């Protein structure tokens, strides 16, 4: 019997080529009953290794190869829980005190954390000093003299020296294999990764590469044969395996206890807080709610989860006390206790949400509470609060394992094979950049088309290595918001390491690993729209002196539902995308639950599962609301017989295929799990067997299976949709009633959402919103709200009032949308944050020094103002308040920027009139787009309207009145191009003119013929068949023509 104790996985990051689960599966297939994983300075692969071993019944020993200060490697194995804790602490200690990638363990650390660890002598030089140092650090009993055989001459000489030393120092001999890849074929990938690690190519790597392919997993019999002259070294592996009794099953993790006053228990405290909250939330606190809360609290007590709820409640309290908006999402929204504690905002009883989806006795795992927070500084405050509350080593962010995917694999493998930068760019571009890839385009075909010779061995190798590298870990990143906290020291459970972002610490496991091993995670997710809502509320309070309470917004606001039904939703959370807008007029939301459906329905899951159209047809009465199977009627009634939510699919599995709650939960995790294809296949088999047992066969069975499996990647839970729908409703409400505040906030939180700020501004203008330009005397760093100007701004000190060339009149008069929105009593003043290239410190210096009497005064008194910054301010009209127009300012700025020299510095500049002509409207638009990325003046298309009209080209707003099925032409600037993976090669195009947005659909063949024009032209004339599906207007494109307008290039959001 042979047990391999010295195996690295791909989690040694570029130092090995196989995944931990592949290694243990291969080992098991070869007849190994146990194996140790020993990655370099980390335990990142341990959970996967352990879980895979557990599944196949193999024993998974854990260890890590630790880099010492002297550069020597210490292969350490955890003998027991103490050893594992020490190993975690050792790695944490060395990682946290060194810059990323440079961590080494000192002798003192190795000695301090040496208890419970077994040390191998490793692959270093077999010197007495090295061996004796290990004995000194770990004790004679815990050191094994390691011999490896990879059919190399010099290794034999080394082994002989090890044997002599082992005898002399009375150390047991241990045969190991120093595995770097599961199979010998993976040696090539290992070589390529070695080259990547050393930032070189395989051609130049020389002796850094492996000498042969022998570092692969070998069957026990072969290992015994290899060491037949020293059988005791093989026998010792069995002895050591018996000795190591630690597995991740006894991790020792404990969630923190919430401190309560004497005489209270955590549960009594939780009950009291819940009751308090419930009275506030449920108005009135009705019997159904009481019963539900009582049921939930009993289960929480039974499962001993009170502490967890209190800790999340504590976080929400912190947010509330500090004016930070926080809202729970995910399955927590199914819980009335969470609702009462203020963690979530959706009333689960009114919504009839399934509590078991959140917490069930059967599952035996921690519930999952995710908090949405305003992105940016506010979220960071909450994260820092968690660190402060639980200590630097009691809390950490979860890791995000960055794996090789398309482009990264294409680039790194290409570099390793020595392709030049031009070829690398070409290779990387071959990897799909658009969401959708034509199935006819095989990799070989793509390579041939790009001019690569497939008979060249390097290209051939590239193809195979690129494929093999997919999904291998590249490095550890930081998960967007998952935090793990622990009672006591988290670094005894899992190693911690510094994140790239200062002040952040991450654990070495990702969120799936945490879930597998029962570590409780609270997701603190940054949501741009939360920040918009928060800022909007502050602005409304400051300028309109109104306190808007998001928790108690009017439920059935007419303006909100009108806007939604009209698909007038630009800027609104989750319902603003082109796809959402095309669906809204057909779905016609009339109540809150319709928004929940709307949020969930435009997802790859329902679209791939072909659930979108049946639902819309049934909603409009075009189709009968039939159920997949009569037994599923209770589950599907609310969504007209069409499964849309994850919860429904779980219930379907439970009813139709006799799944238990636990099995259904396994199904759910397989759905959202990126490495779960095999699990999904296994589940499908079980689903079919269960349904057959219940007499559901044939077509019905297939349809149910398809419904469930189409959610494999992007299933959307109802509770989550409800939480999002609340935010969507709030954003719609603020946009409809407080447009100035909402627009100001959304402009300040960019980049976010679906549209570029230029589109948001034009949309707001169409709704009657006034904008004011960036002004050196009025603007702040962010965009702000100003009282509505009567005609023009007053000029500041020392200058004469000038016409407001950029102050925007709203397009309200002609706009239908504007009529439904309340007229904005306030204007939005663009902030310095929109001035291209202007640094925040310069803007602050300007604000501190103003008002200015002249350009020279401005230049002399503003510290750090650069030439480019002053020019840019002049170009966008921000200096107009000094007197004159933009070109006057540019003329003056150029003079003020030239150093006068000490002799003339004090002299007053004679003010001469500028000889430059004022900018034309087109020039102003161009300058606006160049300098701020948007214009608050006229839309570029309005400059060309007259000539377009004479050519019979319609405007976007007149499309609605055009005859369905007629051929129409419309022109505009492209604001969005989308080619989603679920759309089978169709391109969705949105173009904007001064009256609104027109949407076009391009068929794959037409896209191929016009690819260049469609993907690059900033202005397009499109011609096609007008489609109008219950108010959702679009053009089926027949012809596209580039319009060569010499005005500005309007930015487009492209999703490809």
């Amino acid at each position, binding site marked *: 019997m042979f047990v391999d104790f010295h195996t690295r996985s791909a989690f040694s990051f570029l130092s090995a080529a196989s995944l931990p689960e592949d290694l243990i599966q291969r080992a098991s297939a070869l007849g190994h009953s146990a194996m140790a994983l020993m990655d370099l300075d980390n335990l990142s692969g341990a959970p996967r290794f352990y879980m895979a071993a557990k599944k196949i019944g193999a024993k998974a020993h854990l260890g890590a190869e630790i880099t010492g200060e002297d550069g020597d490697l210490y292969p350490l194995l955890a003998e027991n829980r103490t050893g594992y804790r020490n190993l975690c602490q050792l790695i944490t200690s060395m990682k946290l005190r060194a810059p990323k990638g440079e961590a080494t363990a000192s002798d003192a650390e190795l000695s301090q954390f040496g208890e419970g660890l077994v040390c191998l002598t490793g692959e270093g030089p077999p010197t007495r000093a090295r061996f004796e140092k290990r004995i000194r650090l770990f004790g004679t009993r815990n050191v094994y003299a390691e011999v490896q055989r990879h059919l190399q001459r010099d290794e034999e000489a080394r082994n002989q020296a090890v044997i002599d030393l082992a005898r002399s120092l009375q150390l047991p001999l241990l045969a190991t294999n120093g595995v770097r890849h599961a199979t010998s074929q993976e040696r090539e990938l290992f070589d390529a990764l070695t080259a990547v690690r050393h930032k070189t190519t395989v*051609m130049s790597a*020389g002796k850094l590469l492996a*000498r042969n392919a022998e570092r692969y997993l070998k069957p026990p019999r072969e290992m015994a044969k290899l060491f037949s002259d020293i059988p005791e070294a093989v026998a010792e592996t069995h002895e050591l395996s018996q000795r190591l009794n630690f597995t991740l099953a006894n991790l020792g993790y404990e969630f923190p206890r919430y401190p309560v006053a004497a005489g209270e228990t955590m549960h009594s405290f939780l009950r009291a807080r819940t009751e308090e909250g419930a009275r506030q939330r449920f108005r009135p606190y009705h019997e159904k709610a009481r019963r539900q809360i009582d049921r939930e609290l009993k289960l929480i007590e039974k499962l001993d989860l009170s502490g967890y709820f209190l800790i999340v409640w504590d976080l929400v309290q912190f947010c509330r006390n500090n004016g930070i908006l926080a809202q729970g999402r995910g399955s927590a929204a199914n819980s009335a206790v969470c609702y009462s504690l203020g963690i979530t905002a959706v009333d689960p009883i009114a919504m009839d949400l399934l509590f078991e989806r959140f917490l069930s006795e059967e599952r035996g795992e921690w519930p999952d509470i995710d908090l949405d927070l305003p992105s940016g500084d506010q979220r960071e405050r909450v994260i820092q609060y968690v660190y402060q509350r639980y200590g630097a080593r009691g809390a950490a962010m979860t890791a995000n394992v960055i794996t090789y995917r398309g482009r990264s694999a294409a680039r790194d493998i290409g570099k390793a094979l020595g392709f030049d930068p031009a070829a690398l760019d070409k290779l990387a571009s071959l990897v799909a950049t658009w969401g959708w890839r034509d199935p006819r385009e095989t990799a070989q075909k793509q390579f041939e088309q790009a001019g690569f010779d497939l008979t060249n061995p*390097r290209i051939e190798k590239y193809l195979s290595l690129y494929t093999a590298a997919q999904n291998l870990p590249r490095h550890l990143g930081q998960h967007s918001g998952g935090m793990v906290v622990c009672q006591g020291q988290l670094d005894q459970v899992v190693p911690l390491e510094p994140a790239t972002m200062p002040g952040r610490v991450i654990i070495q496991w990702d969120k799936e690993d945490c879930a597998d091993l029962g570590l409780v995670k609270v997701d603190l997710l940054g949501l741009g729209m939360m920040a918009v809502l928060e800022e909007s509320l502050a602005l409304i309070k400051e300028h309109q002196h109104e306190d808007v309470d998001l928790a108690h917004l009017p439920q059935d606001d007419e303006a909100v539902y009108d806007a939604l039904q009209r698909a007038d939703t630009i800027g609104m959370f989750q319902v603003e995308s082109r796809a959402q807008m095309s669906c809204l007029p057909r779905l016609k939301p009339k109540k809150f639950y319709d928004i929940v459906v709307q949020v969930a329905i435009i997802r790859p899951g329902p679209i791939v599962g072909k659930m979108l159209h049946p639902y819309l047809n049934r909603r409009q009465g075009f189709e009968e609301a039939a159920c997949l199977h009569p037994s599923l009627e209770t589950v599907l009634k609310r969504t007209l017989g069409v499964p849309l939510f994850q919860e429904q699919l779980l219930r379907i599995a439970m009813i139709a295929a006799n799944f238990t709650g636990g099995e259904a939960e396994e199904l759910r995790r397989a759905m959202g799990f990126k490495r779960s294809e095999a699990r999904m296949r296994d589940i499908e088999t079980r689903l079919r067997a269960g349904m057959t047992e219940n007499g559901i066969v044939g077509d019905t069975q297939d349809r149910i299976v398809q419904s469930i499996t189409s959610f494999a990647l992007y299933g959307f839970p109802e509770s989550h949709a409800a939480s999002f729908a609340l935010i969507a409703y709030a954003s719609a409400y603020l946009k409809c009633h407080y447009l100035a505040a909402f627009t100001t906030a959304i402009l300040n939180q960019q980049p976010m959402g679906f549209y570029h700020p230029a589109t948001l501004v034009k949309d707001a203008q169409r709704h009657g919103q006034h904008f004011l330009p960036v002004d050196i005397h009025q603007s702040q760093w962010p965009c702000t709200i100003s009282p509505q100007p009567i005609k023009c701004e007053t000029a500041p000190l020392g200058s004469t009032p000038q016409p407001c060339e950029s102050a925007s009149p709203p397009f309200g008069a002609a706009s239908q949308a504007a009529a439904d929105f309340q007229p904005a009593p306030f204007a939005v003043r663009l902030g310095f944050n929109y001035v291209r290239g202007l640094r925040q410190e310069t803007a602050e210096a300007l604000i501190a020094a103003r008002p200015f009497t002249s350009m020279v005064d401005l230049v002399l008194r503003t510290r750090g103002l650069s030439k480019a910054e002053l020019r840019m301010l002049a170009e966008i009209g921000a200096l107009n308040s000094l007197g004159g127009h933009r070109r006057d300012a540019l003329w003056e700025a150029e003079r003020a920027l*030239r150093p006068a020299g000490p002799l003339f510095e004090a002299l007053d500049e004679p003010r*001469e009139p500028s*000889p*430059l*002509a004022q900018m034309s409207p087109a020039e102003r638009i161009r300058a606006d787009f160049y300098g701020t990325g948007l214009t608050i003046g006229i839309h570029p298309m309005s400059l060309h309207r007259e000539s377009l009209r004479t050519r019979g080209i319609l405007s976007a707003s007149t499309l609605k009145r055009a005859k369905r099925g007629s051929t129409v032409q419309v022109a505009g600037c492209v604001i969005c191009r989308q080619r989603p993976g679920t759309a089978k090669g169709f391109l969705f195009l949105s173009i904007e003119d001064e009256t609104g947005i027109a949407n076009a659909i391009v068929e794959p063949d037409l896209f191929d013929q016009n690819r260049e024009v469609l993907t690059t032209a900033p202005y397009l004339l499109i011609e096609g068949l007008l489609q109008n599906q219950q108010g959702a207007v679009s053009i089926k494109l027949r012809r596209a023509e580039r319009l060569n307008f010499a005005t500005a290039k309007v930015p487009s959001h492209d999703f490809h």
Partner: protein
Amino acid sequence: MFACIHAPQAAALADSFSPHVEMIDETTAVFSITQRQLAQIPESLQIAVAATVETAILAARNLPGYTFIAPGDEPRLLGHLPIEVAITSTLPPDPELFQTFDLWGIRSLSDLAKLPDEGLADRLGPRGLSLQKLARGVLSRPLRPLLPEPVYEESAEFDHPIEQREPLLFLLGRFLYDLTAKLRAQSLSCGTLHITLGPHTRALGLPFPTRDIKFLLKLIEHSLERHPPTQAIERVVLRIDPVQPRRVQHDLFTLAAPEPEKLELTLGKIRALVGDGNVLYPQLRDTHRPGAGLNDAPALAFRYFRPPLEARVDPQPGKLLWTRQFQGRILNIAGPWRSSGDWWHCDPWDRDEWDLLLSDGALYRLVQNHLARQWLVEGTYD
């Protein structure tokens, strides 16, 4: 007046008018022109005549056919030219300046010409003023005609051919004395020597620039020793390709390398002894490829068989090894030692090696080449 021709054969055409021609680029040539010559200008030529060099260039490059610009007529004829075209045709491009003009709305030369002098000078300095003068057609500068490149060459012809080395070296020494003096005057140094002896020319490339006559002469002497002239010499030419002189910064803490002159002379002597192609430099290759590096070298010295010997064998103790040169029974065996690599290359390797103690008492290295399916005895240990 100055004339500028903008045509593919600009140089030749300009030469027909004047010996003093300034070439702006391969297709643009400027020269001064007399009233009498104006009548000789063919109508078909793209040529402009103006009072200043720059105006002539600007007009020739941007206006078709023959253009005559009388002094004072420049704004009328050139004012419409777009500013970026006009400027790049006479001056190196300056993106920042273009950006400024673009921001100012200055699109043509007449726009630029109209700007106030003082205001422009305040903002764009002398460069701005020059541009404005160009726009107004009053930017003047002298013509910079192309002068011929100096040639560093000395030669002599003899009534009585030279047959001995000493007089030849004496003569070449005198040539070198004169030529290095010329080079010194121009702060140049010697890069390559071209020595023509009768019908044959030899080139002596120097590893470093030098004007050291003694060294150069010694080098010529070595060359003559290695390749003596095959016949009496009636004509000698020595030409030097000039290069920038060598600048060496000595370091206090690095060991001084041999003086390059001495090293070159020594190498010259070695080449003279063993032949030019036989002087090579040793180099270690960074690869595991067998025979290319020193790694995995056994403690014993190894003698390669060139070429290796094909063998028939079953590598087991007691079995026979057979080659054309020798045969024997295997007494002891170690291995296999496996190596493979260069898998991305058209010439990869993949082989096993054994060390065999044969009944003849010698220790051999047996190789199995997996790719060529060959058994070879590669050599023997000393």
